[in-house]
């Protein structure tokens, strides 16, 4: 998606949405082509699971079919509206799957070209840490930092004041840094204990 002229992009999105309401099939396909990447990447960033992201994307666009007439351009862009839909679907599914924070499975599936892009260890650990953040911090960070929404857009999607967004971002970053430090420390301890010679008592007891 071209980010050079977001205003122009949004005008196109608004037109497509209006045409969807009017029953133009091609406009629905066109909007899907333009925006499904955003929705998919948001869900993938939130849950770190490709299958989860795929399901969310499908559900969001089914919602678009049924609720396109509810879009209100006064409240924000189509992109932000879609993120709002994606957020609701994601939270519902996370709730349903009890995957809020502490039961997050690692993404399953083969390592394909997408995962290879994320295979850098630091990035991989960062993504894993984000996926374990409490959801209110996670969604703020994903929208603002990873999907590059503005403060105002993030606030619209999250349906909260901008000050709350700033506060969640700050706390989210602090929590994230703490988690990453703890991970690094744990990894370091494991490494040193593996490298140290075993004492006789530990072997024989």
């Amino acid at each position, binding site marked *: 998606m071209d980010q050079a002229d977001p205003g122009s992009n949004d005008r196109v999105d608004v037109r497509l949405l209006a045409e969807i309401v009017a029953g133009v099939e091609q406009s*629905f396909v066109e909007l899907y082509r333009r925006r499904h990447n955003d929705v998919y990447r948001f869900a*993938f960033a939130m849950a770190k699971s490709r299958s989860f992201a795929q399901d969310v994307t499908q559900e969001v666009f089914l919602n678009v079919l049924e609720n396109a007439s509810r879009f209100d351009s006064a409240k924000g862009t189509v992109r932000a509206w879609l993120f709002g839909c994606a957020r609701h679907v994601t939270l519902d599914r996370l709730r349903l799957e009890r995957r809020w924070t502490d039961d997050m499975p690692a993404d399953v599936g083969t390592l394909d070209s997408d995962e290879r892009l994320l295979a850098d260890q630091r990035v991989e650990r*960062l993504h894993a840490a984000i996926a374990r953040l409490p959801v209110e911090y996670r969604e703020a960070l994903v929208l603002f930092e*990873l999907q590059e929404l503005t403060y105002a857009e993030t606030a619209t999607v999250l349906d909260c004041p901008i000050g709350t967004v700033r506060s969640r971002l700050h706390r989210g970053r602090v929590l994230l*840094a703490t988690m990453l430090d703890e991970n*690094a420390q744990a990894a370091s301890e494991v490494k040193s204990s593996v490298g140290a010679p075993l004492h006789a008592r530990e072997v024989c007891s």
Partner: protein
Amino acid sequence: MSNTPHDASRLQSDLEQLRTALRAVEPPEVDEAALRARFRDLQQQRAQNAAALRPGGSTHFHLAAAAAVVLALGGILAAVVLRGERTESVLVPVAAEAPLAVPAPVSAFQPLPNSPSLLPSSSYNVVRVRIPLSAFAVVPGTQQGGSIEADLLVGEDGLARAIRFNEADALLVSVASQ
């Protein structure tokens, strides 16, 4: 990651890398034909709903609306008939997400409003019931005496999901309402 604490600038740099990596993540291919089919389904449903809601709609619409009213009270009715009536377990072909109160052949099951969706893979019981016409207060001229035979499609949870009327009885009601 190194063992040094994550300072703000380092975290920001890592987030930028993750952002770049995520930008390269591509969703799997989606069958656009399926999207188009879903779109057409929905448009068709809307058209049918609009036709059903037009003033002076058919008697079948009145019947379906009446059925909705009756079966809004229908938890009770279903429970009663489940205890007393003959039941047969069937796999019923379902008109997927058929709109409510749509004019259709009398012999077709009409999904009930506010009931869980019908699933082709689920099994349902067909329960034949006789409903007093007095219950059909929304159908003009049918308040006096008599009853109508109908088949209820009841899910395994005991809740009614759809209804169809005996064609002969339905014709009687149709005549009576004119």
